[in-house]
Structure formats: C-alpha cells, structure tokens
C-alpha cells in the first residue's frame, strides 16, 4: 500500500471525526480540544443511545396525549409550528 494513499485516508478520517465531534452536544463548547478517536466514538455511541431513548420517551408521551386529546382541533396549531418560515 502506498504511503501517500494511507496519508490521504488519515486526513479523510480526521475530517470525518471532526465533523462527528461538531454534532455532539458537548462539542458546542468553543475551543474544545480534539478528543481521541476512541473517546469520540464512545461519546457518539452514548449520544445515539440517548437519542434512541428520546424517541422512545416522546412516543410514550405522544401516545398518552392522544388518548385524551383530539389531534384534529390542534391540527392548525401543529402545522403552523412546524412549517413556520
């Protein structure tokens, strides 16, 4: 394998990792030093797990609301809040 090719791949991977870091909540701190790849991947896994849990939780809560409330009357309000320019 040529060393040049592996160098380019390393840069590519570094860029992809940096992009991932910018998507994590903690990364929004300005001037955060670049985390190690292992730490970054671990944080990424934790974040995805927490997002999956949020989807579960919000599904439960929406189900609860739908048991007692009528979506149709709130329809205009829902659409407005989602598609406001």
């Amino acid at each position: 394998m040529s060393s040049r090719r592996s160098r380019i791949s390393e840069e590519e991977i570094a860029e992809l990792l940096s992009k991932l870091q910018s998507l994590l909540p903690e990364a929004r701190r300005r001037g955060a030093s670049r985390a190690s790849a292992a730490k970054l991947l671990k944080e990424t896994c934790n974040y995805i797990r927490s997002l999956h849990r949020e989807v579960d939780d919000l599904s439960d809560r929406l189900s609860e609301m739908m048991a007692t409330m009528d979506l149709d009357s709130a329809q205009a309000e829902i659409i407005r809040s989602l598609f406001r320019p």
Partner: protein
Amino acid sequence: MESKSFTTGNRDNPNTDLHGSKNMMASHFLRALFRIQQTSTSSSSFAGRSRRIRRAAYASMAYSAGARRAWSRALLRKLRSRARLRFPRRLSRTARPQRRDMDQAQVLRKLVPGGPSMDYCKLLEETADYIRCLTTQVRLMQTVMDSISSYAHHPMIP
C-alpha cells in the same frame, strides 16, 4: 436536552444541525400520527399506540433520507420486513477493555442501521447523517407535543 426550534435549528450551527429533508419528515410523521389516532380505538393499548408512533418516527426518518443513504436503506429494509425495531440499549459488557477505537467502532456499528456492513470511513460518514436525522426527528416530535399541549391549554376561539 436543551430545547431548540424545529424551524430555525440551532443558532450556532443552523446549517449542519437540522437534516435537509426536515419538512418531508414532518409531513410524513404528521400524516402517520393522524392515521394512528383515527385507527386507535378506546380499547387500543397505550403500549401498542406508542409502538406505532415510534415506528412512524423511524419510518419518517427512513423515507425522507430515502435511497440516498446506506443507513436509511437498511432501516427501510427492516421496516418493510415488519420485524421489531430494536437498538442495543446498554453498553455491551465484554471482558475485554474497550480502549481502541476499533472496538468502539464495533459498538457504533450496532447502533447505526446497516452499520455491520460498513467500513470505518463509511461508518463515520453515515453516522453523522444518521445523528442529524435523529436530532431532527426528536425536535419534530417535541414540537408536535408542545403545540398539542399548548393548544389544549389555550384553544383558539373560532
């Protein structure tokens, strides 16, 4: 989680934060939600309805990303097979300490749909898109919830 607007995204990262197809996701999810309410009877179980809503959430994510992404293609396959949608919840307890990034990549592969067949580079790329889509879906659901409850407390007078 801090609340962020579904329409404007995060002030710091307005372009990278929300997924490009957020409007499509919202339309799809809303239609599914109304359909679920219409077909829900008083005897429908809370858990059953919750499962349908959860499934609609992942469906709207998958359909809006469509065939463009490996993760959405894998998710669509799973949805169409009618198999139960399951993601690993806890850290896998292995005897080996998970120090190297390759081991963490394996953990990540189980969390991103289609992960097992992706090489490292592809995995990182797909993960970023998957995260953007997930956060958009979460905010979408939050916004729907907020507007339903605010309507319930302040119904508009026709």
